[in-house]
């Protein structure tokens, strides 16, 4: 799972109101190179929860993203490269996603988060 996916996913446990962002527990991160698509990044920037992306990428061992970002930064190639890398090239391969409200862990194996709920969580 890449951080773009993480950036839109909330804890889905019944009754949880602050399920975003899911905390990440890392066992293994994999990096895979992807072509940079400038137009895509510009479009995405408006939709991304920046703070969540910064925090998630740091947990994954990448701390190049600035704490705050604004759209004027999209003119910088260097910024775009970092944004691209954090968003699309880091994969959480093994670990867990943790509900920020309840601490419930959703395991991630082979890159796939298991968000299935137990009966009493639906």
């Amino acid at each position, binding site marked *: *799972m890449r951080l773009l996916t993480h950036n839109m996913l909330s804890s889905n446990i019944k009754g949880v109101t602050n399920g975003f962002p899911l905390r990440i527990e890392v066992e293994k991160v994999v990096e895979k190179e992807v072509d940079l698509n400038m137009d895509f990044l510009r479009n995405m920037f408006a939709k991304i929860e920046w703070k969540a992306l910064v925090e998630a990428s740091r947990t994954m061992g990448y701390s190049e993203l600035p704490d705050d970002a604004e759209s004027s930064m999209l003119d910088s190639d260097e910024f775009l490269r970092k944004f691209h890398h954090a968003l699309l090239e880091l994969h959480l391969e093994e670990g867990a996603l943790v509900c920020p409200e309840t601490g419930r862990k959703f395991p991630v194996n*082979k890159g796939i988060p298991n968000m299935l709920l137990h009966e009493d969580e639906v």
Partner: protein
Amino acid sequence: MKLKQLEGLLGSLQQFETPKIELEQYPTGPHIASRLLYTIPSFSIIQAENSFGDVSDKVVADFGCGCGTLGLAAGLLGAEHVIGFDIDAESIEIASLNADELELDMDFIQCDIRNLRLSDRAIDTVVMNPPFGTRKKGADMDFLSMALKVASGAVYSLHKTTTRDHIKRTALREYNASSAEVLSELRFDVPQLYKFHKKKEVDVAVDLWRFVPNNNRPKHL
């Protein structure tokens, strides 16, 4: 990419090993899958406001992705980020192998679509072949309502032709779609995967729909 070429690539993908009846697991055949996806870029050209098409450079979700055919087709047609959602781990594993085979990066999430929580409008385009609800009544409507909630651009979906009026009414009135259109009517050969299917293939009339979610609804405080 040519239609035939896409069909060829999709035809080489691995399909369900031991299909689970209760989940309505049968492959979205390459013939139908390639046509479903292929109409997306060409259809959207008609839409003046959408200069990119619904797939190329987009964030695409495949709901009930099974072995991944639809999502991978989107990837082959240039989607920037594809996420497959399915309740069944074994199917996702096959889908993931298929992605490797095609050298595509596709993310997967194992979840029940009915209680998925994604940010509203986080996805540009949802493509899906939902369970038709032959096993669990209304299963396809659960998928459709969620798709119209998370998509900002368009939802492409297959539903039984017999339910056409119901789908249209519900999508427009209850799921807040701003348009709901049948692009084509297809014959869907559901192969005899299950013992209770008497004939070799069950021929079902299926509509290919394009829904547009309503992005202009009043924002709640």
